């Protein structure tokens, strides 16, 4: 029998302060007592502890999230549901969201990453959309560290194992390496789906008397307290919490996707929600709270894969591949038949009730009864913030500019830094082509997916330069959004909106909270200028290992619309003789640059500044030139500056370039000044292009050669494409074949 008789009594929980080990603070416990009008029992304390964890409640970040613009003419669904939805015309919509799985991946990297992918896919199809793409924003520590290599290898395998099996192409993302992620990798997974407007579903339990059904995999003891685990720092003791990491079954999820998309077309469906973080308790209480009703659930009916599970275990389990649905009363058999065809459970476990409570019955007794909205209303925490001394010092630092004697050697060294090197070792492990809609594969500025049956495409990217944000979170926050938008524009897309994954350290540290505040402000401001509302997102705090916090890393996931795939652009040069333009002038801005990090081992000074109005104007002009067919290739200048962009443009082609500059070589090649592009233009269209894009300076032409020749007033640099490309491609596979 379940060991419920061994659970502590409400009195013991209070007197022995057991709630503290479960994750509730003193004042939060008092608030629970006030809301209930009595002391909570063990199960109820558990419900509150997970639902009021940072991971589920956003209690610390809520005041900041309010700063984001969330409305716009295309927004069909903003934050608050499984994923956000934007209109893309023709009664179609794009659905997307990004989510972190950092903590589980630090402990059990394969399953941590795999279930991160599984969870975000459920968020998307629960809205009624077919998932069409996955992107992963990954950050790891120093590849010379064998533990880091293990985490990297297993995370990539986990993503591949899940995404490849379920048949959703993994088309892009980011991969960066920095010592600050040594013990705390970042694994942020984004899923994009496409749907018809009429199929839109929400996670609401409307209609008194309607039936609550449990569908998908059965419930086990895996992942209990996962949400609470994700709301603490990682420490030596974290390994003991390995059982808080869930295990994924992509085959089960594939069946679930197909069955749920069939269900979406059924008129009996009222609401559907993923059982993600905090499993049954979050899905049930959120569906009830959003509809202003209650749910009565009989836990004896929950499909269980282990014996003698207690209500606490069942409610807090984070077993994967499960959904909670509400259907019209009387249609249970039809719904069961849909799931049975796919070999899945669909079990009626409760009903929608008028009284606004979540009431749980087990073995003939009511074992928990809490107001539905109480679980969803954790007391908001207003944290103090303080300007870090380091920020002040960095702002006052003199301009950093290195003396470089060997320009070609420096370019070579820069391109073979793991962060700038080819990511092929990773992307080859992902099936990026399944569904046969991948028009632009991983490796360009943004991935592009065709919307089948139309001439439209969706461009998608994830971006965040954490070094800039570390130096100046306000400016860095703006740049994260600007870079994402620039990447979309480079593909010929119009930026539509963003999802964000806000990864930070411990918010109780006022300096960390200040970084959160400033970077969110910067991102919000940029979103307003680009008219790209935030439609979904996730916050991951406590990314610290042994009190060493990560760089603030708010990752931006952006989706854009390409109205005609015939006008698609990529970064690669296309034709010999095309004119090469550099759009925007380089200033000596090296703070947080790839060059500075390579030469100094750390970021210092001010990051590049960004003029959002100029950025927007230039994006509009470049997009206009693309749409009018004036360009052959477009690439944005970001990490590694022009040196990296020029190399990207010739790699994988049979071309070289002949370029002339009257500027300072070090600044021209390596500065990371914002709002800049490398564009190639057919000779015959130069006039049209120059009239469309202000600030475009002719720099040379595309040559059929193995060299990039760069001529400056005082010296010339010649880069050999074949050798440079070979070394650039080999970095990761070489690092990963190292022993021990």
């Amino acid at each position, binding site marked *: 029998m379940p060991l419920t008789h061994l659970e502590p009594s409400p009195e013991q929980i209070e007197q022995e302060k057991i709630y503290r080990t479960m994750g509730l603070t003193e004042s939060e416990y008092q608030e629970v007592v006030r809301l209930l009008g009595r002391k909570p029992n063990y199960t109820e304390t558990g419900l509150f502890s997970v639902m009021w964890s940072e991971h589920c409640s956003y209690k610390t970040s809520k005041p900041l999230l309010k700063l984001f613009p969330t409305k716009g003419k295309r927004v069909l669904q903003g934050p608050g549901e499984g994923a956000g939805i934007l209109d893309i015309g023709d009664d179609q919509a794009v659905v997307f969201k990004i989510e972190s799985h950092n903590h589980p991946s630090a402990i059990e990297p394969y399953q941590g990453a795999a279930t991160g992918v599984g969870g975000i896919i459920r968020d998307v199809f629960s809205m009624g959309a077919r998932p069409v793409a996955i992107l992963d924003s990954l950050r790891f520590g120093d590849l010379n560290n064998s533990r880091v290599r293990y985490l990297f290898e297993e995370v990539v*395998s986990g993503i*591949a*194992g899940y995404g*490849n*099996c*379920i*048949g959703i192409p993994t088309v892009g993302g980011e991969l960066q390496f920095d010592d600050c992620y040594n013990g705390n990798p970042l694994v942020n997974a984004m899923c994009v789906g496409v749907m018809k407007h009429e199929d839109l579903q929400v996670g609401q339990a409307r209609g008194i008397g309607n039936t609550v059904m449990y569908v998908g995999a059965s419930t086990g003891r895996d992942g209990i307290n996962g949400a609470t685990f994700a709301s603490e720092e990682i420490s030596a003791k974290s390994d003991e919490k390995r059982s808080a990491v869930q295990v994924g*079954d*992509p*085959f*089960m999820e*594939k*069946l679930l996707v197909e069955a749920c998309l069939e269900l979406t077309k059924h008129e009996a469906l009222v609401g559907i929600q993923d059982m993600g973080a905090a499993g049954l308790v979050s899905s049930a209480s959120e569906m009830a709270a959003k509809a202003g009703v209650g749910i009565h659930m009989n836990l004896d009916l929950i499909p269980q894969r282990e014996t003698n599970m207690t209500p606490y275990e069942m409610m807090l389990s984070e077993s994967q591949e499960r959904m909670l649905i509400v259907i019209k009363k009387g249609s249970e058999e039809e719904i069961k038949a849909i799931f049975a065809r*796919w*070999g899945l459970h669909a079990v009626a476990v409760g009903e929608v009730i008028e009284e606004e409570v979540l009431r749980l019955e087990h073995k003939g007794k009511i074992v928990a009864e809490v107001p539905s909205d109480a679980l969803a209303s954790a007391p908001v925490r207003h944290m103090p913030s303080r300007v870090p001394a380091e920020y002040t010092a960095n702002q006052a630092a003199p301009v950093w500019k290195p003396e470089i004697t060997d320009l070609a050697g420096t370019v070579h060294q820069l391109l073979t830094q793991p962060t700038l090197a080819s990511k092929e070792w990773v*992307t*080859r*492990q*992902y*099936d*990026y*082509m*399944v*569904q*046969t*809609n*991948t*028009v632009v*594969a991983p490796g360009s500025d943004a991935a592009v997916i*065709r919307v*089948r049956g139309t001439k439209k495409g969706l461009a998608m990217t994830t971006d965040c330069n954490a070094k800039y944000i570390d130096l100046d979170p306000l400016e860095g926050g703006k740049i994260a959004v600007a870079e994402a938008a620039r990447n979309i524009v480079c593909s010929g897309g119009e930026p539509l909106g963003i999802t964000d994954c806000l990864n930070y350290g411990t918010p109780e540290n006022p300096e960390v909270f200040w970084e959160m505040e400033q970077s969110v402000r910067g991102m919000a401001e940029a979103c307003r200028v680009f008219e790209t509302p935030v439609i979904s997102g996730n916050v991951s705090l406590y990314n610290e290992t042994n009190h060493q916090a990560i760089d603030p890393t708010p990752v931006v996931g952006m989706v854009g619309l390409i109205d005609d*795939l015939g006008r698609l652009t990529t970064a690669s040069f296309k034709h010999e003789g095309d004119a090469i333009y550099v759009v925007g002038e380089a200033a000596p801005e090296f703070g947080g640059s790839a060059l500075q990090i390579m030469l100094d081992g750390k970021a210092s000074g001010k990051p590049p500044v960004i003029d959002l109005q100029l950025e927007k104007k230039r994006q509009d002009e470049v997009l206009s030139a693309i749409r009018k067919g004036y360009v052959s290739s477009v690439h944005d200048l970001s990490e590694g500056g022009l040196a990296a962009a020029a190399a990207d443009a010739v790699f994988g082609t049979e071309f070289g370039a002949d370029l002339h500059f009257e500027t300072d070589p070090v600044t021209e090649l390596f500065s990371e000044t914002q709002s800049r592009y490398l564009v190639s233009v057919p000779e015959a269209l130069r006039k049209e292009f120059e009239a469309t894009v202000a600030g475009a300076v002719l720099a040379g032409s595309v040559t059929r050669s193995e060299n990039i020749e760069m001529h400056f007033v005082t010296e010339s640099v010649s880069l050999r494409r074949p050798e440079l490309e070979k070394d650039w491609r080999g970095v990761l596979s070489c690092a990963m074949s190292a022993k021990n």
Partner: protein
Amino acid sequence: MKTAVIVFPGANCDQDMYYAIKDGLGEDVEYVWHAETSLDGFDAVMIPGGFSYGDYLRSGAIARFAGIMPAVIKAAQEGKPVLGVCNGFQILLEAGLLPGAMLKNSHLKFICETVRLKVENNETLFTSLYKKDEIIRIPIAHGEGNYYCDDATLKTLKDNHRIVFTYHGENPNGSREAIAGIMNRAGNVLGMMPHPERAADALLGSDDGLRLFQSILNHWRESAHAAYTS
């Protein structure tokens, strides 16, 4: 021509195959659920890629017991074109319609990329529109595509020109003799690891796979015409 695309639980290239035939080839195509028992009325059968039953036991090992498999075997015996791609190839091996077995890739990792194939035999109903020894570009995406067979089988395959495609250039998975696709003795059952359905639209990078489907269609037209005139 009316083509069946078999849908196993966990298949994930079924839609890609469907659209390659419907949009790329412009012919009739229908999904057939794994629990069905008949393929009467279909002129060709496609077993698409994916992870049937999660591939948890051994790729294709459970799918071979599905309700539809006797009908697939019957179609093969009747001489209808049967094409198994990727997981479909693995299923054909498990079902004994083709000889040999599939091992994990020699480098032990999943690999997804567009590779070059050499058309070893263009005198088949699947490859009549290619030139002999033509190099074509078709994507692969698999973790277990390392084809293996014993010496006697290899000799039979070679002697009877049953090796239809080989990898050109680097062997991506360690396959014996760089084998990418083989057919049965009668020449109407083809198994291949590369995905021709992913190379049926130039927008996605290559349409070299489309001629494989067009070859099947030509064969069907000719044999229908032959049946009509005889």
